[in-house]
């Protein structure tokens, strides 16, 4: 690997860490790309090569993963939607359904006690939705 390739991966990591931290903010791809010091098109291509999904789908997956955590704690669906940075309840619910396979209120009503025995960061990784189909 060349030093440039390593430097690119460091920039991608910082951009992804930004998404993980600031998912509740109105982030867009140009803002993420600027964190990575790349043009938006180049950034999206490199991000997908490294992480297997586009920056935008990564952000939405992160939001849905956080939403699952809040719903497990009993937060209402509307409050959860706003808390994770989504502004439209309709698109939040359909994205949630697409990724998790059930709608937010169904998920909220289910028993989640089996997740309580694992450490927090493990439960975050274990419950993180995986996009197994082609990332869109």
């Amino acid at each position, binding site marked *: 690997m060349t030093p440039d390739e390593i430097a690119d*991966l460091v920039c991608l*990591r910082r951009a992804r860490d930004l998404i993980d*931290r600031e998912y509740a903010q109105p982030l867009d791809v140009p803002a993420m790309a600027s964190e990575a010091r790349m043009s938006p098109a180049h950034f999206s291509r490199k991000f997908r090569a490294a992480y297997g999904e586009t920056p935008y789908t990564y952000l939405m997956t992160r939001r849905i993963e956080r939403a699952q955590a809040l719903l497990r704690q009993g937060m209402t669906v509307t409050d959860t939607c706003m808390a994770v940075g989504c502004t439209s309840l309709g698109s939040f619910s359909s994205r949630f359904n697409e990724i998790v396979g059930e709608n937010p209120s169904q998920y909220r009503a289910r028993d989640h006690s089996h997740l309580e025995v694992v*450490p927090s960061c493990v439960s975050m990784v274990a419950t993180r939705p995986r996009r197994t189909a082609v990332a869109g």
Partner: protein
Amino acid sequence: MTVSVSSMFILVNDPDAALGFYRDALGLEVRADVASQGFRWVTVAAPGQDVDIVLSQPHGGRSQAEGDALLSLVTQGSLQAAIFRTDDLDTTFEKVRASGAEVLQEPTSQPWGARDCAFRDPSGNMVRIAQA
């Protein structure tokens, strides 16, 4: 029969930078530092704890392709190194932050009761530190 943890392994791309983090910032002690064929294997451990952490380089003892693949995963932040615990999270956090480490999460009380923070080590591994 009793089995306990003896050694664990963390991949680092620069042993000296890694020592700046694991030894100088976190306060681990160096128990061995072995060089072979241009690579280093540095063993660190928490004072008083009998668990060795071996810091090794992705290409050490591996093919170029295998090393490149591992280095990519480390650098892009796909790997988690370890969770440490401290009796004083705020002081530990400030010391590690002052070392220049990338902060992933300030000390935060989690809903389930734990209080922890998170950093990237200089290579890109996620390192979490929890209040004991």
